[in-house]
């Protein structure tokens, strides 16, 4: 009927032995990274009172033996990786769509930052889940994951403002927040002192991280909701106008663009020499990052909606003479189905059969 329930677009995460993914709506599962058997699922359904997470939009963050994630229902959870038991939870009393950001000390998360649909930004103690006494009010929804760098937290809001805050005190650092014409909804990315953030105004903005001044902006035909990828001075920005744009980080000039069949919300990923993008209809493309030319196998068809960010995973492969490392791309699709691009060069795609724990090759018609 058009009225859609939230389904979630959390991307998968990985540890040495586990693959963490939302394999069903409102559930987080831990799969054995070797045989992909399911080790645990949260919530279990046995909780009292019943726990309904509705959906999960935040890609899980792993620190030590704990996994953190936020649920659309408003809670941030810390679970024990071993058995999925709940360590703590913090209820924001609002919906969580934005991804989590974390402050790492000695490779362990010390503080978690979470933004809510009402525009509150909380800092949570990773050990206890207790919120810091101060919180920040962005004035409107936060749909993009905050970005932490050098003690500064960059927060994009749907009111079109990009804030630079002291991560400790939440005091603004810039004189005025950067203000775009309309809502900023893509996860901000920092590269060479430039913050890249896009939004509903159909523009990708390059903002000076030090001053908050706009360096350049690039117009597209629709919203920028996917997180841009920056590699070697080139910005790869997906847009919901069906295109992936390659722009010069320095000037914002368009180097090339590639037109997919549908809008792109997922972030592009780079594997070896192939740029992999997935459009919202589940068409997977391999592109030459220099020219934007599609590899001959493109597209592979997942035939399910894909809005999550893919994950690149290095996997040791025994070759004839020696062990080699191959990069595989995990793609989480609508309904929690998990796909794997086995070889971005050849485009071999497989789907995880949850019953057998095996990846079954997907044949594109």
């Amino acid at each position, binding site marked *: 009927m058009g009225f*859609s329930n939230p389904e979630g677009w959390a991307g998968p995460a990985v540890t040495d032995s586990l693959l963490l993914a939302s394999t069903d709506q409102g559930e987080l599962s831990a799969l054995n990274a070797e045989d992909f058997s399911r080790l645990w699922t949260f919530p279990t359904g046995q909780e009292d009172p019943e726990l309904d997470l509705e959906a999960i939009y935040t890609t899980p963050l792993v620190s030590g033996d704990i996994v953190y994630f936020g649920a659309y229902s408003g809670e941030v959870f810390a679970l024990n990786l071993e058995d999925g038991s709940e360590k703590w939870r913090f209820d924001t009393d609002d919906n969580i769509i934005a991804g989590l950001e974390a402050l790492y000390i000695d490779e362990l998360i010390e503080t978690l930052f979470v933004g809510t649909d009402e525009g509150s930004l909380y800092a949570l103690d990773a050990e206890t889940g207790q919120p810091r006494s101060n919180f920040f009010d962005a004035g409107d929804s936060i749909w993009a994951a905050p970005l932490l760098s050098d003690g500064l937290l960059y927060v994009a809001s749907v009111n079109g403002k990009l804030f630079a805050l002291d991560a400790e005190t939440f005091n603004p650092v810039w004189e005025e927040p950067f203000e775009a014409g309309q809502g900023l909804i893509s996860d901000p990315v920092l590269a060479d002192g430039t913050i890249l953030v896009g939004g509903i105004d*159909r523009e990708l903005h390059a903002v000076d991280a030090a001053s908050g001044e706009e360096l350049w902006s690039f117009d597209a035909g629709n919203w920028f909701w996917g997180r841009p990828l920056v590699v070697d001075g080139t910005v790869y920005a997906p847009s919901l106008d069906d295109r992936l744009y390659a722009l010069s980080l320095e000037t914002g000039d368009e180097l090339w663009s590639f037109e997919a069949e549908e*809008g792109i919300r997922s972030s592009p990923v780079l594997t070896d020499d192939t740029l992999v993008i997935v459009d919202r209809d589940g068409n997977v493309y391999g592109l030459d990052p220099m020219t934007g030319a599609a590899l001959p196998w493109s597209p592979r068809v997942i035939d399910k909606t894909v809005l999550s960010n893919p994950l690149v995973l290095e996997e040791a492969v025994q070759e004839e003479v020696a062990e080699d490392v191959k990069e595989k791309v995990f793609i989480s699709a609508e309904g929690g189905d998990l796909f794997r691009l086995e070889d971005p060069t050849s485009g071999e795609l497989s789907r995880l059969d949850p019953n057998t724990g095996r990846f079954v090759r997907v044949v594109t018609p």
Partner: protein
Amino acid sequence: MSQSAPAAPAAARPKLGNLLMISIIVGLVGAFFVLGPGVAWNTLLMNPLINALLLLTNLVGGQFGIAIILFTVLLRFVTIPFTLRQLQSTRAMQEIQPRMQEIQKKHKDPKRRQEETMKLYRESGVNPLGCFMPMAIQMLMFFALWRALATVVGGSPESLVSLSQRIYAWSFLGDAIPLEQSFLWLNLGESDSTFILPLMVGVSTYVQTRLSVTPAATAQQHQQQQMMTWMMPLVMIWITLSLPSGVGVYWVTSTVFQVFASFAVYGKSMSWRTLLPMPAPAATEPKKRPKLQPDVQEEAEADTETETTTETTTEAPPRAREVRSRHGKRRGKRKKRR
């Protein structure tokens, strides 16, 4: 009985409304064939409605709830020719009901009964599809708007991604995103857990349904209508409980408008009694009356018709009066023969 003559004035009746309706239907069907159902549906109905909603939201200061109400009223004004036509057709059908009942009673042979019925339609200038076609167009609009509203109010981040594909490349429209979904006690993107809105939907639907039913020709029809009168509100309550409140706001506004339109058309002939459950099956009465004085009954019906016509001279076209006067003559002739 030279009943073929009255058909001429009916044919000569200005058919602007018909032409408009037929053009719309042919245009839509043609577009569905040429563009394909999905593209035509989105391009011709959904996307214009969605963008109009966003535009209105911006124009009323970002108040999406007010935009829905305003949009509904505007839409109902635009489609008012269809609404009036539907109501007038319904009234015309009501007016010929006594004679319909008579035909039902007189002719047992279905073929003959159908012929007589068609003849009656011709004589009275009533098009049986006159009620159906405007209603079909309105239902199409309702369904499109329903879908448009559901898309706009969404209820999930996924729906916003879908919405982005439907918004025209005019930056002003983007100002409406994200929509302010609070309106009165409602969250327009969620169903109303207070049950106030579903109740309003139920009551308004009941009133509208009661005002639009025609008197039943048979006991079976009466029973069906009674069921419809209660079922429609209940179904709408159930639908409202499972849809975003924005759709409920649309429905209440739309039905209230329809009720006012009904008052405008029916005028004095309506009273609060119309809202009460229908009286005993009308089909039973003609069975008794003809046994006593069939002609007296017919005359009484003719009188009632004349009265109604006089009251609504502005609504009923001159042709209707002409037809009725011919009826009068015919009765006169028949009496003479007897």
